[in-house]
């Protein structure tokens, strides 16, 4: 007979409609033996009563359905974002509220370096919040004129470089003619580099090399720490290349005794034919372990709204910008969907603009008719601008959605004013319409684009507050209960993991988020502020304070 531990808690939110709230949960062999009252659980035999959570609130371990483990890698660089943000070691970096503050933070990092050639790499700059005043190479030259300095913007679509970095890349010269490289009055680049094409020549010199999106060992360990601090016990890694090397690394790291996270990496559909990609993930699937779940595909239909590279239906961008770009054209998406459905492989598809969503639906419908797959759970990721008719179609086609629900907070004012205009800005990330259309719903952070934090994303979906404090899209608000379901059972469902994860009920993994307060009892505006004590993952206890 193996040991049974029964935890008592102030409150246990189960997500099991038969008993939404209980006081005790029994754990055996890393799984939930039962949830209920102590009297109900005692019937399982000998146990040890653990009261360490007696004043805590437990809920199912949160599931981040769309994030990138590179967030863990980025924290080795200098954080210069506008918002306060916690690093893997639990230190909260205050937001840098002016260009001077950005320079000051980079300069103190510079002062700590001994190697004179080592670059300074900053990340998460967002001039939108600083009256859109542009950062120039001269600004960054104040950090250093002798070593390369580069700062990645929060969107990931813009890089600022200093003169030294531009010089090393051969760009500090007159006559540079590129739409992504603005020139100053002196005819030389200002140091802002827009888009991957313009960023790439410089990126390698400032610490953002080609393989930046691939997490390394330390990055994955750091990412897992961030997850514990956010109450997350399972996270996707939504666009990985999954080379042999990175799969080996992930298998190694996730098999270590105290690794606190289940990772679900999706192979990005790029650089392979649809046949090759489907065959590749089928092969990977065989390598899956409890803490590393392989065998899914991520496809990317278009770009981003704030980068004006999303594909929009009429009337297009509010500021008149030309339509965005297809990252995967309809013919290839169709081929991928058909082959994946035939092979029983799940595809998550990134769409931002409403035309990209429509394209995905248009190619999915004939594919599902040709390859009947009643439980495919193909998921549209971001899906930010979908309208009611598109959600209705998704519901009928059995598709899931994972909406970027905290976008309102970070960029909602920009969307309202600049990118899509008031009406579509209010409609964006229509969580309520999705639920009304019977579309299984998850919500996400897309870390590192925004900080990892399901409770914050839930708060954003419930309140729809922008950074300037406006409510944007009153009619699309959902309840706290619906939002908490989306970050647990909802996300689990989009990954076919709802039988194992997402609720506190018998047979499931003993994955809990341990909270200092009750998100269903506090004011809806306070949900984001609830402190996370740590997690329980597979029955193992991870206090954030001891990471």
């Amino acid at each position, binding site marked *: 007979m193996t040991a049974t531990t029964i935890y008592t808690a102030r409150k246990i939110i189960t997500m099991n409609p038969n008993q939404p709230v209980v006081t005790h949960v029994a754990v055996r062999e890393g799984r939930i033996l039962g949830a209920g009252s102590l009297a109900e659980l005692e019937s399982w035999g000998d146990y040890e009563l653990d009261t360490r959570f007696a004043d805590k609130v437990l809920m199912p371990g949160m599931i981040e359905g769309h994030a990138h483990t590179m967030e863990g890698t980025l924290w080795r660089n200098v954080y210069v974002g506008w918002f306060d943000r916690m690093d893997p070691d639990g230190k909260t970096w205050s937001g840098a509220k002016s260009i001077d503050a950005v320079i000051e933070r980079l300069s103190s990092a510079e002062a700590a370096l001994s190697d004179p050639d080592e670059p300074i790499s900053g990340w998460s700059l967002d001039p939108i919040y600083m009256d859109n005043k542009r950062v120039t190479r001269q600004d960054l030259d104040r950090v250093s004129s002798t070593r390369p300095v580069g700062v990645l913007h929060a969107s990931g679509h813009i890089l600022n470089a200093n003169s030294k970095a531009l010089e090393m890349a051969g760009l500090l010269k007159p006559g540079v003619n590129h739409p992504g490289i603005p020139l100053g009055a002196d005819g030389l680049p200002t140091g802002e580099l827009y888009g991957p*094409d313009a960023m790439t020549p410089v990126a390698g010199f400032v610490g953002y090399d080609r393989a930046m999106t691939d997490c390394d060992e330390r990055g994955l360990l750091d990412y897992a720490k961030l997850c514990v601090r956010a109450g997350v016990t399972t996270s996707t890694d939504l666009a990985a290349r999954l080379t042999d090397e990175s799969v080996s690394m992930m298998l190694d790291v996730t098999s270590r005794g105290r690794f606190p996270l289940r990772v679900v990496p999706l192979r990005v559909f790029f650089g392979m034919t649809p046949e090759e990609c489907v065959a590749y993930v089928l092969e990977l699937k065989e390598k899956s372990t409890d803490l590393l779940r392989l065998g899914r595909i991520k496809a990317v239909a278009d770009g981003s709204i704030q980068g004006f590279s999303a594909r929009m239906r009429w009337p297009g961008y509010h500021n008149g910008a030309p339509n965005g770009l297809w990252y995967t054209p309809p013919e290839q998406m169709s081929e991928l969907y058909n082959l994946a459905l035939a092979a029983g492989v799940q595809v998550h598809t990134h769409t931002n603009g409403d035309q990209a969503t429509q394209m995905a639906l248009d190619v999915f419908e004939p594919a599902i008719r040709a390859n009947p797959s009643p439980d495919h759970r193909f998921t549209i990721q971001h899906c930010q601008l979908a309208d009611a008719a598109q959600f209705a179609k998704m519901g009928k086609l059995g598709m899931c959605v994972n909406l970027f629900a905290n976008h309102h907070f970070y960029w909602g004012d920009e969307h309202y004013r600049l990118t899509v205009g008031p009406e579509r800005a209010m409609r964006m990330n229509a969580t309520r319409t999705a639920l009304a259309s019977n579309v299984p719903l998850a919500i996400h952070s897309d870390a590192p684009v925004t900080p990892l934090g399901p409770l914050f994303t839930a708060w954003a979906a419930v309140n729809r507050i922008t950074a300037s404090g406006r409510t944007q899209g009153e009619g699309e608000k959902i309840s706290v209960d619906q939002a908490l379901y989306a970050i647990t059972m909802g996300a689990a469902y989009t990954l076919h993991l709802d039988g194992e994860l997402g609720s506190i009920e018998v047979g499931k993994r003993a994955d809990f988020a341990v909270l200092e307060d009750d998100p269903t009892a506090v004011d809806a505006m306070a949900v984001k502020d609830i402190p996370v004590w740590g997690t329980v993952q597979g029955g193992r206890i991870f206090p954030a304070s001891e990471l």
Partner: protein
Amino acid sequence: MLNHADTTSAASASAQAPEKPGKASLPVTVIGGYLGAGKTTLVNHLLRQANGRRLAILVNEFGSIAIDEDLIEAEEDGLISIAGGCICCSFGNDLIGAIEDLRSVEPAPDHIVVETSGVALPGSVVASLSLIEGIRPDGIVVLVDAETVVKQARDDYIGDTITRQLSDAEIVVINKRDLISDSAAQSLALTLSDLAPNAAQIEAAFGTVSLDAVLGAVAQPSSGGTDSGGHSDSLFDSIAFTPQRRFNAPALAEQLATGALGVVRAKGYVAGDDGAIWLLQTVGRRWQAEPVDHQPHPQLVCIGPKGQLRTSDIEALVQAD
């Protein structure tokens, strides 16, 4: 350097910082066009005609590189070696990195050909290439499927991709010409003149287009006169000169590029009014003229479709006093 880019797309302008004297820059031709237009077939055709020119083909299409089996000599670390000294590799999402990697290839290639993805805008690709030291953008070739391009250009999803690709083009290859009637071809030519105002048009079937027309000639003429011997498909003519007189070099380049003379590409060196030797290059309607520091002998090669290349008019233009 004087140059002319009669296009609204800043991305395809070809202004560059002055090259260091004597520094050889490596020409890069970008081949674009939507899925199914025949880019890969064209690339294979170019490899078959390479005839001693060392082409480095960079492919960004999904999946395996579709080089004809019989051309492949060896394959190692993603680099395919091809009979005759050519190489081929896929660049994924890192074209600049792939070009940097080519610098270590021995012997160095003579010409890089980039086959873009079906949804890429070739003008943007060229803009990125222009950021690389030692690289000279040398022509944007856009393939269209003669049978489907008009319908594609009206498609809700991909129409703007097709028209943006064409607006970047300097040479439009109307592939699969055999699948449409002569009257349809005439109407298509007019449509494409609107959609690709800067481009010379070439008709083709099965991607069989002259290497020299697509990539430019290696200008090594010994005497004047026409010559189609180098063109395996003999759908193209070229005319080569050793011009003796001095020219207003930019004006000559501009005239060669108007389209009236049937020139798809012209390249060579002429003596300018100022006595300096000028390098002239035209691709489609785009021309470029710049004085060079070294003193090559005057020579000029013009290439165009057989029956359209106005050889006598060109000869009159170049040889007249």
